[in-house]
């Protein structure tokens, strides 16, 4: 980023870099970007924080530590964590199979991975509920094993796994494609077993991407609403996720309560996002430095 010649002290914000700006439109496009970003995202989002300040710290703390709220936050984050871990394992498997092996209809399978991005969440929600309900295609079969998925926290995990599925696959795929197979083959010629080569050569190169995919799937799952509410059963303290509790409080005109839960979720999500960004920058600099 920093060029050695950029150290000239310039007070005006205009020509900071020495190579003169030949292309026009910098002021216009950056100005428009900043105004639009502020109007649509930054100012509206700040409203949440100002609103929660408005009702006082004591009230905020009371809302956030209420047992029902704590239970919903714990469920949201716990189920998201479980779903993201499932996605890491199976997403890795899917990415590996798609990059390394050839089999019939591979292109089609590859394209299908993005379905959760394209399918509206409400549709996913009712479809999964229909499948896992006690009389559904899968539910009826699972019931014979005494497992009920729909209308339990397990159903929430299923919905969140569906939602987060593409993230791990899509972050791993390019890294796997770039991975030098010669290094693996070298490990094999040096006498490493397949398992050793995997653990010592492949995994170390992949874990930044795995972690990024995990974090993206997790972040998406925490805020998810549409696909979950149909399958969850929505019992307070048991299967009620935090976003649903925000909606419930809004419907009771408890704006301060809804805002307080939103603030907690936003702070946690932003922390997660900045963590992902730092991780990606770190991985990129390491990757580029080779």
């Amino acid at each position, binding site marked *: 980023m920093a060029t050695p010649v950029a150290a000239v002290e310039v007070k005006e914000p205009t020509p900071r870099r020495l190579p003169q700006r030949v292309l026009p439109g910098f002021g216009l496009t950056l100005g428009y970007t900043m105004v639009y970003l502020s109007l649509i995202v930054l100012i509206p989002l700040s409203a949440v924080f100002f609103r929660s300040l408005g009702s006082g710290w004591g009230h905020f703390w009371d809302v956030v530590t209420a047992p029902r709220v704590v239970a919903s936050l714990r469920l949201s984050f716990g189920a998201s964590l479980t779903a993201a871990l499932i996605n890491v394992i199976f997403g890795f498997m899917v990415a590996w*199979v798609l990059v390394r092996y050839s089999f019939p209809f591979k292109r089609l399978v590859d394209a299908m991975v993005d*379905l959760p991005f394209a*399918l509206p969440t409400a549709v996913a929600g009712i*479809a999964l509920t229909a499948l896992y309900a006690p009389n559904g295609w*899968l539910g009826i079969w699972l019931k014979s094993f005494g497992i009920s998925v729909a209308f339990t926290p397990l159903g929430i995990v299923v919905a969140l796994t569906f939602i987060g599925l593409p993230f791990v696959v*899509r972050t791993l795929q390019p890294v796997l494609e770039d991975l030098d197979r010669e290094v693996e083959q070298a490990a094999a010629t040096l006498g490493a077993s397949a398992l050793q080569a995997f653990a010592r050569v492949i995994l170390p190169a992949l874990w930044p991407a795995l972690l990024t995919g995990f974090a993206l799937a997790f972040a*998406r799952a925490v805020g998810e609403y549409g696909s979950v509410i149909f399958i969850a059963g929505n019992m307070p303290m048991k299967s009620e996720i935090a976003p649903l509790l*925000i909606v419930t409080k809004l419907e009771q005109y408890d704006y301060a309560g809804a805002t307080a839960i939103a603030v907690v979720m936003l702070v946690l999500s932003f922390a997660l996002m900045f963590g992902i960004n730092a991780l990606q920058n770190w991985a990129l600099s390491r990757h580029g430095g080779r």
Partner: protein
Amino acid sequence: MAAAEARIDVRRAAPGRLLLIAAALLFLGLFLVLPLLAVFVQALAKGVSAYVAAISDPMAWAAVKLTLTVAAIAVPFNLVFGVAAAWAIAKFEFRGKNTLITLIDLPFAVSPVIAGLIFILLFGSHGWFGGYLKAHHIRVVFAVPGIVLATIFVTFPFIARELIPVMQAQGKDDEESALSLGATGWQTFWRVTLPNIRWGLMYGVLLCNARAMGEFGAVSVVSGHVRGLTNTMPLHVEILYNEYNYTAAFAVASLLALLALLTLVGKSFLEWRQPELKHAARLAHDRTRREKT
């Protein structure tokens, strides 16, 4: 590439490989194919005539119309923003660029429900601008403008995020040559930049549109659920479902599922035209690597 793949396939024609493929396909079948199949089977469970009756219901049509209207407003807004942001970020160096990119991604980290909530806090009857809007008889929340705003917020990063790496990979040599040959800024943009980024642009629009038409959480909070007036297709699906009118709910859902499939087809086509689009972040990365060597 193909030869190397074939060689490895021969070398690893082990049962382990088949087992991995089977496990991956089983997982995808269970989590992707089966739900999709369920939508269509449920929609047609009571026969074609019930299906046709469900999707030709006036309320369903009102929902379709509203969904199309909202997307037709939200997507162009974010398209103009995406092009402007990508131009500033990809073609120029300035302080705080990484922070700006992070801020553009911000809506991805916000729960859709919270995206709806913020507009209620702003424009609701107890919101910051609530008094003003009421005095002037303008309805934003629980009306179409609120739905549009929430949709714009939720789909905000899509086009910018696809275009930034595409424009970064393109560099600015083409534009600089056009300018040195006497083209104006706008001519350069329309004749040089736009043709260069057209696949990336369509890619972003496609993804943005899919999300705009399918958004549920944010829209649900600001809509007020007035049937025939503020009900988008996903919200209509929910209402029908909660009324135990499963056939109709799945019939409307099947239209959305078709939209999703069309999106995937379009996406595959664009990735075939420009393979780098699939992993957009790689475009810029590959370019820096090319320049180094």
